[in-house]
Each structure stands twice: as C-alpha cells, then as structure tokens.
C-alpha cells in the first residue's frame, strides 16, 4: 500500500510537472469552470442569438439537450 502511495504521488507529480512550474495556474485548477463550459451556447442563449450556429462552432460532442441542462452552471461562471 505504501508502494502504491509512492507511485501515485510520483506519477501525479510527473504528470503535472509543467503545472507545478506555473504556480499561478494552481489558483485556477480547482476553481475554474471545468472542462465543460459551452460559453458560446450560453452566450447565444442569453443574447437571443442563433444557438444552432453556436452549437456547430463549439464542436461539443454532447447532445444539445444536455448542454442546455448545464447552462445554469455556465451562467455561474465558477460553478
């Protein structure tokens, strides 16, 4: 179990080596909007623009109904 812990720490440090050298990035790592931020779609929805265009431009591989369901998170900016 100790060996596992050692491997996990070493592996995570190895994987995030560049991030460790950019301390400012740590501030956003755990507070950002996450990987799921269909900002284009939210903007289009709120501003009454074409959601179709925004969805096509976003390239999101998720069905649109689910992206709409996540809109409240996007509106919070930092969910």
């Amino acid at each position: 179990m100790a060996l596992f812990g050692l491997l996990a720490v070493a592996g995570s440090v190895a994987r995030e080596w560049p991030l460790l050298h950019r301390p400012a990035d740590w501030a956003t790592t755990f507070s950002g909007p996450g990987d799921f931020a269909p900002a284009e779609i939210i903007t289009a929805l709120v501003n009454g623009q074409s959601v179709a265009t925004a969805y096509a431009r976003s390239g999101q591989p998720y069905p649109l109904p689910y992206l709409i369901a996540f809109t409240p998170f996007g509106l919070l900016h930092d969910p």
Partner: protein
Amino acid sequence: MTLFCIGLFMLSMALLAGGWRNPGFLPALISVPLFADLLTAHATSQLGLTGLCLAAWAQPRRRWVLMGVGLAIGLIRPPNALPLVAVLIYSSWSEPFGLLKAVLAGAAVMLPLVALAFWLDPAWVGIYGVNVGHTDYAGLPLVAIRLGGTWGLVLLQITTILGALFLARSRRGQPLDPDLAAYVIAIGVISSKLAGPYSGIFALPALARLGLRPQLAWTPWMASGAAWLFELTFVPGMVAGALAPPVWESIIAYWFVFAAWPLAISRPSAAEVAPATG
C-alpha cells in the same frame, strides 16, 4: 465543480461498487482516470457515470422509474451508455410494464429539454453527428474515424453493444448482476470519445468490484499502481519541456477495462463475496 465531481463519483461507487467499505474503493479513488477527471473538472462524464450506476442499481431492485431516470442522465454520453441500455432492455425483457415505466420516466426527464433543443435548433441532431465525427479522439475511435469516418464510429459502437449483449446472453429477463453491470459500463469506454485519461472513470466501478472478491482483492491496487507507473514514463518528456502528456496517454483508460475482465467471465460464489456488495 471539483467537489461536485467528487460527490458524484462517491455516489456512483456507493450505488454499484460497495462504497468506501469495499477494499477496491481506495485504489479506484486514487487512480489516474479520476485524478485527470478532477483536474479538468469533467462534470459531464461524472454525471453520466452516476446515471448509469443508478440505472444498474435500480434494475435488479425493480425500481423502474429510477432506472429510466438513470438512463436518461447516462445518455449524456451516448457511446458510454448504449451497451448498458441494450443489456438493461435484454435483462428486463420479461417485465414489459417495468420497461414502459422506465421509458416514461426517462422521457419525463428528457422531453422538456429535447423540445427546447428542437425549438432553439431544429437541426441539432445533424450537428451533433458532425461534432462527434470531428472531435479530438485517441485509441479505437480515432482508428474507426480514420477508416470509415462517422460510420466507422457507428460500427465500433455496434460492436461494443453486441459484445455487451454476448456477455449478458444468459441473463435474459433476470435481475442484472452488479458485476456484469459494472463491466458492461466499462465496455462503453471502448467506443467512447477518448480525449483524456478521464475517460477511464467508467471502468472504475468494475475495477473496484474486484476488491469484493478475496482472491482478487489486490488486483485494483496493482492495476491502479501500474497506471501511475506508466505516468512516470512521461518524466523525461516533461523535464525536456513538454507542456502536457502526449495525446495517446488516453489509451490508459483501456488498461482499466482490461484489468476488470474477471468480472466478465466468472461469477463469485456467495461465500466468496465480501459483505459490502453494493
């Protein structure tokens, strides 16, 4: 969002993997896929996993409404969800009214959003197809796209569904065994978008369930530890100035599907299963 993701993962593990009392829980919690998922706060994937685990939990308990709601949520990532959808329909075949309840419950969750989506963008289904075909992939979906475009992806999807149904072939009309359910969810990794190691979270309930079998209790630790060892191979590149691990790092998700294969071929005896069975 990170806390939200951790909460969803804990719920998924409680529903299908015996929760924190399972000896396989900790190596799944401290694993490369979950680490990558939390760093990018991939809430969609976590929500999808929770939905699928809810559906798999509900079917043997004949909680049809919850099964329908779970599948509706899980379909946020259709390639991950479709093998389980097929197996749940097959194993619930003798309960047409239960299936009808599940369909109605799922429709109640999704129809308002689907209607809104069609109102905002009547062509969204077509755009979704285009988006899926042009997303960054690695692993088998990338090979499928290179060979046959979107139809290559469709073929890969059909193959995973047939594979899942083959594993469940003797379970028609029976309550779904949680080991099989967890492995069917893991199989979805093969056909899903592989754009980071986070894709492997769908195999973690299956990996953790190995911990419920005393003879395989160390397997989750070894599988998870080996994945971290694999991450160490990126050290030279990182030190040399690479900004991130290579894109093909994503294929590590397959390792977890492979590691959990004993769930697909053997059923534990009653005496073999530890008390926390989920």
